[in-house]
């Protein structure tokens, strides 16, 4: 038992220490930052937080923007991926197999390499400076992984269940709506969280697609926090912003951690 506790403490230290350092930095005054381990007067301050909260536009606006993009991207991904995943499990196996490989390749693609082409896409389709339009690349980029995860969830549903539904006279759409989708709820939830976290954190596309300050998302907003000049890096204020910005995610992870894990358990892994 003692050994177990020891390991747990090591694990927590490893994953929390950098974060705790951010927390500590966020409460430090400018001069305290320079000598972090020595005792000095006036170490503690709330200035960093006040600066963020009093900024214009206010900080919650960015949280809201990220929330809007995150939820819409998540919804679009689910709406597109659930039927696609279902069809993959019901289609002829040769097609499904090759599709699955392609999806895997797409899911593995380092998306940063696509930003230039995506930028051109935004120009041609006039998608710049539109929060909801931002969810198009996000959901498109998450679709491959989502389809893979969901299709294996569908595969886990016993065939008899669907056959019974067919006998009851339900058409494809009704079967999906009343029988199948409720059954894959845990997988959908975990997929949703994966997509949400991705959209919440994405930087290069958000930076290049949006230039109106009232529409930017959280990571971009944090990169715009400024010190007193172009040259100074306001580490304290950054730290405060990252603490405030991670509270929503901390809550999500605390509330949904069961779904995240159980969804993955059913997961795509059989592909």
């Amino acid at each position, binding site marked *: 038992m003692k050994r177990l506790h020891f390991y747990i403490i090591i694990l927590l230290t490893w994953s929390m220490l950098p974060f705790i350092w951010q927390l500590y930095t966020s409460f430090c005054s*400018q*001069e305290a930052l*320079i*000598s972090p381990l020595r005792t000095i007067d006036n170490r503690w301050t709330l200035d960093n937080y006040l600066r963020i909260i009093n900024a214009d536009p206010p900080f919650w606006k960015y949280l*809201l923007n990220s*929330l*809007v993009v995150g*939820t*819409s991207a998540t*919804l679009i991904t689910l709406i597109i991926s659930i039927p696609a995943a279902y069809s993959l499990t019901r289609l002829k196996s040769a097609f499904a197999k090759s599709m699955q490989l392609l999806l895997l390749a797409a899911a593995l693609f380092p998306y940063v390499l696509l930003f230039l082409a995506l*930028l*051109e896409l*935004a*120009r041609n389709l*006039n998608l*710049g*400076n539109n*929060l*909801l339009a931002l969810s198009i690349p996000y959901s498109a980029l998450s679709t491959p992984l989502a389809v893979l995860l969901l299709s294996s969830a569908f595969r886990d549903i016993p065939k008899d269940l669907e056959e019974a539904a067919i006998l009851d006279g339900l058409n494809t759409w009704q079967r999906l709506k009343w029988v199948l989708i409720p059954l894959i*709820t845990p997988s*959908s*939830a975990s997929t949703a969280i994966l997509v949400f976290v991705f959209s919440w954190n994405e930087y290069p596309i958000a*930076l*290049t*697609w949006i*230039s*109106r*300050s*009232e*529409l930017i998302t959280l990571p*971009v907003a944090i*990169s*715009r*926090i*400024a*010190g*007193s*000049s*172009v*040259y*100074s*890096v*306001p580490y304290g204020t950054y730290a405060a912003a990252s603490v405030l910005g991670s509270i929503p995610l901390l809550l999500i992870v605390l509330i949904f951690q069961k779904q995240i894990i159980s969804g993955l358990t059913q997961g795509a892994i059989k592909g």
Partner: protein
Amino acid sequence: MIIKKLKLIIIFTLLCFSSIVIGLTDTNKPIEINALMPAPFADSTERLVEQFNQENKGKIHLTVTRGPRETESVSDMAISSMILGNSPIDILLIDVTWLPKYAATGWISPLDEWVNDEDIKSIISGARQGNSYKNREFRWPLVADIGLLYWRKDLMQEPPKTPDALIKISKKLQNEGLVKYGYVWQGRQYEGLSCVYLEVLKGFGGDWLDNSNQFRLDEKSSIKATNWLRELITSEVSPKAVTNFSEPEALQIFETGDSAFMRNWPYAWAELQKPTSSVKDKVGVTTMVADTNQTPTATLGSWGFSILKNSNNKDAAWKAISYLTSEQAQKELFLKYGYTPTKAKLFNDIEMLEMSPILPELEKALQISEPRPKTPIYAQLSDVLQRELSAVLTGQKDPQKAMISAQVSSENILKSAGELRS
């Protein structure tokens, strides 16, 4: 349960979106213009912008988009918004090195219509550079920036004039235990390193890209300059960590009194006068050291406004620019934020001279200021130089070898650029 939650989320999302749409469609009568600036400039010009909008109520309304703090990210953002086309930006605050690039791509429009010779003469000579491309003005300067040598008045009578003197004084002070380091500067692999190098290079009588479009990086003077920078580190006059320093790291060290000298821009002066600084009132400012028989040089940084080609309200945009760069505005920016003015007149302003003893030094530095190579492919050239210098400073490469390879790479870049053009 989940479906219910989802429904709530959908409704919520729609609500958010509709409020945004309503917010956007609520159009006012005045001409709307938008300026993109790096965040710190957006902050410091906030009051001026408000004032401008007051004075032009009902006619022009200027809004400011805060760019990222990091200047290169501002450029990324500006470039992407220009690639996107149909950008909401009319005015762009740009760095001196971006100008040829933006002008060559045709993203910004020349200012001939609004700027005449008289206007140009109102600007102090140093700041007149770096605003034009192919003999046409493309940018109107807001703030000048020049590389300066900060020195500790409490540790020495006079600042050093030559590279050797700088090392000698540093070593003496270090040996006496008065300071931990002699000299801190910007040695990280980024644009600041090119700025540092240009000053030293010129100080040793060398040049980067000369007037006849020849690179001179493999010459004796360039290698000497590179050697000197390396020597600063090997002789422990500069900390080893200097190879990852940008401006704030250097300032942090100097501010705590750990260093005798610092290379930095004028903004550092205001920071050093804050009550939290341990060297308040102990700092002098001068120009960079130069070898005997050579004149010292200050790398010209500087920010100025350009009007985007696609802007529909260029006249209104110019009105805003001339307001933000007026003598009154520059005076305010100098007194409040220490921004070096660009209008010649202001350098004799009594109120400003009283406020800041370094104004004459800034003027002197501006007179010897030197822009970095003015070419659309500057970013590539600077990148090559930074890589090689960084390799020397971290002891990976011999100075001579590095400079020869910088020369060859630069020539290749220019050559392939020239080939394409013909």
